C-alpha cells in the first residue's frame, strides 16, 4: 500500500493525470493520479491518508522545487491538474466531512486592477497545500469580499495589487473588511506592495511570494 501511495504522490508531482495522458512521456501507458486514487480508495485506504500522504505530498514536492527555482509554472500547473483528477474521487469524502481542508482562503485582485497572473500562482500554491481557495477574480470590490466572508466567516483573505494607484483600493478594502471582520487575517502581495505598506494599512502580513505565505499559514493554523 505504501508503495502505491508513493506512486500516486509521484504521479501528482510529475503531473500524470491519468493513464491516457501523454505527459510525462516517461510514464506513458502507466496508471495516473486518477486510477491510483480510485484503487487506493477501493483497497480501503482512508481519504484523509490519500490526501495528506499522496496528494499533498506530491504537490509539496513540486511546490518545493518551484520555490527553489527547480521547476517551472507549467509543471506546477500540470501537477495541479493531476491533483484535481485525484480530488474528484475524494469529493464525496469531503462532503461527508471525513476529510477537511486546512481552511478556506478567499483571494482576489483589488478593485481597479486587472493583473491576475501573480494572484493565480498564489491560488495554485495554496490549493496544492491543502487549502480550499475561493478566487473572486480581478477588479474585486470590497463588498464582494465582504459578502463572501459573510458566508464563510472563518476564511482567510488574500489581496493582490500590481499598480501603485490600486494600492489605495487595497487600503480601503482592508479598512472595510477590518471594520466588519476585525478578527479575520488579511494578507497582501503584488509587486509594488511592501512590509511598510502592510503596516501602514493595518493588514496582517505582506509576502513576496506564495511559499512564504504558506509557511506563515502553517504556523498559525
Amino acid at each position: 500500500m505504501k508503495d502505491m501511495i508513493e506512486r500516486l504522490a509521484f504521479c501528482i508531482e510529475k503531473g500524470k493525470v491519468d493513464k491516457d495522458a501523454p505527459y510525462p512521456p516517461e510514464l506513458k501507458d502507466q496508471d495516473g493520479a486518477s486510477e491510483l486514487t480510485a484503487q487506493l480508495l477501493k483497497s480501503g485506504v482512508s481519504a484523509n491518508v490519500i490526501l495528506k500522504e499522496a496528494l499533498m505530498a506530491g504537490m509539496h514536492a513540486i511546490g518545493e522545487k518551484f520555490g527553489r527555482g527547480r521547476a517551472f509554472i507549467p509543471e506546477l500547473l500540470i501537477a495541479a491538474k493531476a491533483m484535481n483528477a485525484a480530488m474528484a474521487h475524494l469529493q464525496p469524502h469531503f462532503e461527508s466531512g471525513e476529510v477537511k481542508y486546512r481552511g478556506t482562503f478567499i483571494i482576489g485582485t483589488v478593485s481597479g486592477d486587472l493583473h491576475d497572473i501573480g494572484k493565480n500562482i498564489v491560488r495554485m500554491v495554496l490549493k496544492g497545500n491543502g487549502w480550499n481557495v475561493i478566487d473572486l477574480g480581478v477588479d474585486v470590490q470590497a463588498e464582494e469580499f465582504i459578502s463572501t466572508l459573510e458566508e464563510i466567516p472563518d476564511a482567510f483573505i488574500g489581496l493582490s495589487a500590481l499598480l501603485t494607484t490600486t494600492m489605495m483600493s487595497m487600503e480601503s478594502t482592508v479598512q472595510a473588511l477590518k471594520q466588519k471582520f476585525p478578527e479575520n487575517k488579511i494578507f497582501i502581495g503584488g509587486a509594488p506592495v511592501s512590509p511598510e505598506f502592510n503596516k501602514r494599512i493595518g493588514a496582517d502580513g505582506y509576502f513576496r511570494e506564495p511559499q512564504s505565505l504558506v509557511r506563515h499559514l502553517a504556523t498559525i493554523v
Partner: protein
Amino acid sequence: MKKVFNTLAHPGEKELIFGRARYPLKTRKGLVIGGGKVYPELNFTLPPMNINAQTLPEIKNIYRSVITDACDRALELNSPGLVIELELLIEMTLNPDFAYEITAVIAEELNACFHKRGLKTAFRVTPNDTRDKNRPPVMRSGELLDKILITFEKCAKAGGELLSIESTGGKEIHDDALLNCDLEKAVFALSIMGARDMEFLWEKICKIAKETNTVAAGDTACGFANTAMVLAQKKFIPRIFAALDRVAAIPRSLVAYEQGAVGPGKDCGYENPFLKAITGYPMSMEGKTAACAHSSPLGNIAGAVCDLWSNESVQNIKLLGGMAPTVSLEQLIYDCRLMNQTDNDSALVLRDLMIRSDAYLDPQAYIFKPENIIAISKAIVNQPSPYLRTKAAVETAFDILHKALKEGELTLPPLEESWIHVIEESIQRLPSDEQQFIEQIMPKLDSSKFIAGEYDL
C-alpha cells in the same frame, strides 16, 4: 489602403543601428527621431494615491512638477531633445476628461519650455486598452471601446503628439498559454486574435491621428511577450519560450504600421528592433535604465538599434539625488550622450559592445544579434499573412537558437533543456494553412474566456 511590407527597409546588418532609421520622423517642435541622434524618452507614474475628481488637481500638480523638473534637468545636461510619455492609468481612460486635463497640463509645460528656453520636445500619450475590464471582453463595440477612442481624440487635441497603445486582443487566451508554455495557443492568440484586433483598432487610431494632425506611433505586445519576459526573469517559465513568444509577437505588432502608423514604436516593445528592420521607422527601447521598472536580460543590447531610449516607468518618489523621474532622466541623457558621440565607425564598435554584452547569456538577447534580427525579419516579410509570418518567425528563431545551443554559442540553464523538445514538437504542429490551424485549435480553447465573434472566428 493597407501598407504592405514585403521587403526589409534595413536589409544590411551594418545599417541596423541606434539613432538612424531609414524613415526618420520629424515632430512639431523640430525633433527628428531616427535622424542621427538618440533622445531620452521619460516615463513616470503616480505614487500610491487615488485617482478621482477630488485628487485630479493634485495629480495635475504632480505631473506638472515632474515635467518642469525634467525640462530643467534636460537643459542643465545639454540634452538636444526630450520625449515625454504619458502612459495613462485606467481611471483616466475611463474618464477621458481626466486624460484630457492631464495631457493639457503636460503639453502646456512642454510648450512653455520650448518657446522660452528652446528645448525641443515631443509628447507621446498612451491610453489604456480597458476593454478587458469585462471578461470575456467585448472588443468591437461598447462603452469601453468608445471611451478609449474618445481618450485618443481628446489627448490628441490637448497636445499629445505621438499616439500609442498596448492593445490586448488575444490576451484572453495568451495568459494561459504562457503559464502552460503552450506555443500553439500563444501563436493563435497573437497571430490570429491579436492581429485581427489590431487591424480593427489601428484603422481607427490612424484615422484619429489623421484628423487631429498627430502621429500614429505604434502598439506593443507588452501584455504578451513582456509578461513572458517578466515570468522568465522570475524563473517561472523557460527563457527560450519567452524568446519565441517575442518573435511570435512581431507580425502582430507590425499590423499597426500596415494600418498607417509611422513610429516611434513604444519603448516596451522588444519586437521593435525587428519592426525597425522591416519598416524603417524609428523605435523607442528600454534597457538597463529601465531597471527601475523591471529586471531584464536585455539591458545593453536593447539599445543597439534604438532611436529613443526609455526608463519605462518610475514612481514620482524622492531619492537622495532628486525625484525618481528626474534621476532616471539624467541616466538616460548620459546613455544617449554616449551614443550620440559616435561617428560611423565608433557607432558600430559601441553597438557591437552592447550586443556582445548580453547576446550569449539569454535566448531573448541572442535573437537581437543584427544578423538574427535580419534573418527573422526576412522570414516574416516573405510570408503573406500574420499567421504564416508568425509561423515563419517562430521556426526561424527556433532554428537559430537550436543551432546556437548545439554549437555552444548559447547555453541554457539545465532545467530548460527538456523544454526544447516540447517546444520543437509544438512548432511542428503548426499547419501551413490558417483555416486548418483555427479548426485544430478552437476545440482546445476555453470558450468561456473569449468571444469568438469579436475576432471573426
